[in-house]
């Protein structure tokens, strides 16, 4: 949700997109919070930086909505961690949100690439 001031090429997360990013990340397999943050960062080619506090609250929110489930487990380097995975409801939600996002992106692209300008009045 925030960008670090020092990195100019990072962009702020749009409001509401964090949920989508988390769901997408978890669709690839269950993961703990820190891993989700890292994956989002890496898969966005370091463009997104996830505020960790917000991430955990978002995870909790999604869990409350029953879109993801969580249980404590052990990480690959033997650390205790809370692992999240997508529920069927979450998977449906993801498909829906991806669709929404694609439509939005397409519409944005169409407008930004348009070449037909206003006619008439201005000469």
């Amino acid at each position, binding site marked *: 949700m925030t960008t670090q001031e020092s990195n100019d090429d990072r962009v702020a997360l749009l409001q509401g997109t964090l949920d989508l990013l988390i769901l997408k990340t978890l669709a690839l397999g269950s993961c703990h919070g*820190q891993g989700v943050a890292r994956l989002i960062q890496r898969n966005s080619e370091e463009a997104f930086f996830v505020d*960790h*506090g*917000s991430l*955990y*609250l978002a995870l*909790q929110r999604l869990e409350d909505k029953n879109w993801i489930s969580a249980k404590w487990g052990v*990480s690959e380097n033997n650390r205790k*961690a809370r692992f999240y995975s997508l529920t069927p409801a979450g998977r449906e939600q993801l498909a829906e949100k991806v669709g929404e996002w694609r439509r939005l992106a397409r519409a944005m692209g169409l407008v930004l690439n348009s070449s037909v300008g206003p006619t008439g009045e201005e000469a």
Partner: protein
Amino acid sequence: MLKRKRSAQDFADEIKAHLELESDELKSEGLSEEAAHWQARRAFGNVRLAQERFYLKDRWAFLDQTVRDFRFAFRSLRQSPGFAVTAILTLALGMGANTAVFSVMNAVLLRSLPVNHPERLVFLETSDAPRGTGTIDTHETFSYPVYEALRNQKSGLSPVMAYVPLSASKVAVRYGAEPEGAEGEMVSGTFFSGLGVDLPLGRGFSRQDETDHAPLAVLSYNYWTRRFARDPAVLGKTLFVNGVPMTIVGISAEGFEGVDGGHSTDFWIPLQNRPELNAWGNPPNNGKIYTTDPTWWCLRLIARLAPGASREQAVAQLQPVFQQAAFIGLGIKMQGEKPPVLSFAAAKNFYGFEDMYAKPLHILMAMVGLVLLIALTNVVMLLMARNATRQREFSLRLALGAGRGTLFRLLLMESFLLVTAGGALAWAFALGATRILGQWAQIESSLAPDGTVLLFTLGVLALAGLLFGLAPMRVALAGKPELALKTSAATSNADAGKSRTGRIIVTLQIAMCVVLLVGGGLLIRTMRNLENTPLGMKVDGLVVFGVSPTIPSVPEGRIFYMNLINKLRMLPGVESVTIMNSRLGSWGSNNSAMLVDHRLPEGASGGSNAVRWNLAGPDFFTTLGVPVLSGRDFADSDTASSPFVGIINEEFAKQFLPNVNPLGHTFGPDNGVATMTIVGVVKDHKFRSIDESPIPMAWYMYAQIPVIGSMNVEMRLHGDPLTILPSARKVVQQMDPNLPLIKPMTQRAQFDTTISQQIMFARLAGCFGILAIVLVATGLYGSLAYRVSMRTAEIGVRMAVGARRGQVVWMILQDSLVLTAIGMAIGVPLAMLVGHALAASLYGVKPLDTVSYVLAVVGVAVVALVASAVPAGRAASVNPLTALRID
């Protein structure tokens, strides 16, 4: 299915795990252990914030916060119990007085009749009744023919209902063996159905019951409760009314006690046509009762507008019917006589309440409003003073990171607590006060606060709460966080002692106090004057009670009363006994035009020539202690067979027989049936009420008038007059077991009832005046003392550089004196306005009564002086060094 709630600890664990994972990863990327640790932490951001947001996530954050604020405010108030108690009590008194008076106003003026659609009901009124009629009230009562005519027409009003009391006070009833007095009314058959009053038990009356004059009775719920302990078995039992058996057929709805304000009807019977149940308990007039005597306008009428009819339409439709019916039985209309004009009065409220109580209640409401204002400003000042001294506490809280919103919530919560506690006390206070008020005012309908009053009170409380929260906010926020770092109370409080808001409040309080004291003073002096009004008789030692025997014929009636007087005279301790028709000091009287020396006299100064008259027994003036100026009193020897005699008062002589010796002249009723020779002139004395002015009066000897009915017995006794009542009761019941003593009381108490309203009004005003001065005194003292104490450091400096004690005291006093002077300059003209508004309620006092003004001004000045001199003196006697080192 509900998931188990995740604990905050679990969330904290997860964050901890995250930080470890992150720093592991950073280490593997080549950072040092320590650098990795800090990098992970920094990347995470505010851990606490995340935890707090987790904590608040599922909570009703507002409620949670409120509970915490509540606890905190409670603790903070408990730390200064003196402040809390003063504020709560002040609020309780101010609010309580308001709630009580508003509650009375609500019950008396705002509450509707407990009937269906009261807005469609109207009371019928008329301009002056035609000539040759006798009325109970010139504008509010009608004759039976008028009632019949209005009832029988079908448009405009439907139905028209008549109601008339069986007695001007109480009527004799008997249920079982013991006779007693009760308030009863005769009503139309349509009375209950027309008003829409429910009968939870039994039935009401029907049109047929009215036509048949059926011997039925409906009891009021209140009477049924009070007298019969809500026994449903009374239905079908017999209630003897003036000895006539009536079958109880119903109980009226709870809360319905007739449509007239101020008294409650105990039972109703259909309109009767028996001489012993004449309207108002009057004896038949030449054998005629209210149904057969078209000259007696004695019925009150209430009606429901016919469906679809507006008031204007109904008046227009009924006017010709009324104007024709008004002259039925009166003979030919006199040349040029204007017919009476029918009009309607809204019957939304109880009849008569508006006239009697509207003005006093509005004035009282204004007074308690002022009291409340004073109380509120007091509390505001207390709060401001308290919070000004807490300025450093607030600064510290701000410095430690409390938001302004947090401080505001805290202040609001404190004020909420104060207001809630004060409001609860006020409500209890109002409950008690209305009960006492009802007894004083002799209003029998309930004055207790209801839902409307509760809303009103809650509204005022909410406003007060907000005010109390907001007022100190400015002071609280004036303190910047940096202030906490300054060490001197003297610097942080320097301005508080001289704040402009404080000055304005003190000035306004002084002004309001002057207004209240002047108002209270005027009313109390009115009460004094009324209580000390000479009645023109020796009223102590007199006891009065009514008897209403069944009288088959006039001679038998005379014999009854002669025997009664003789038997009562024999009782031990009795000095003298007499009887009279209208009871002294009960507002009741008979008035009519009279012939003097066989012709109608010109009214003095062209005004009314009505004479107030009464029937009296032997030794009448001797018993009352009214001086006979010339001639003699009535005696046992004045009988039906002896020459007819009459007695007049000074005013009569002055107006109708000026410059002659009245003895030997004659007077008599204007129909010429009897002529009385004047045998005595008595000094003017009070008759109907204490506050009346002299009016021409004439007395007939009861034994010489062919009309006889209920009488009031007046007895003069040695010692406590009330002690004679048991033996008097025995005497009366030996003569007729159906007869109760009606409203027995001392004559003094009877007269006092005529000024009870003024007395109550004055007492209340006095109470509120005292309450106001106590509040203002404590408030002034508190705020002035506080203002002075805030200047202690300044005083120290002044004294250290050489100011003398006197100078310091004077400096402080000067400040207060200026405020007091300004307050009075505002208050006195305001008080004059109030005095002007009160003028109608005053008796023997002018609205610009000097004494009241001087007392009020002096009183306030003394309070203000003492309130400033004491703390000023204390401040000035402080060692300057101590003052400078005050913290």
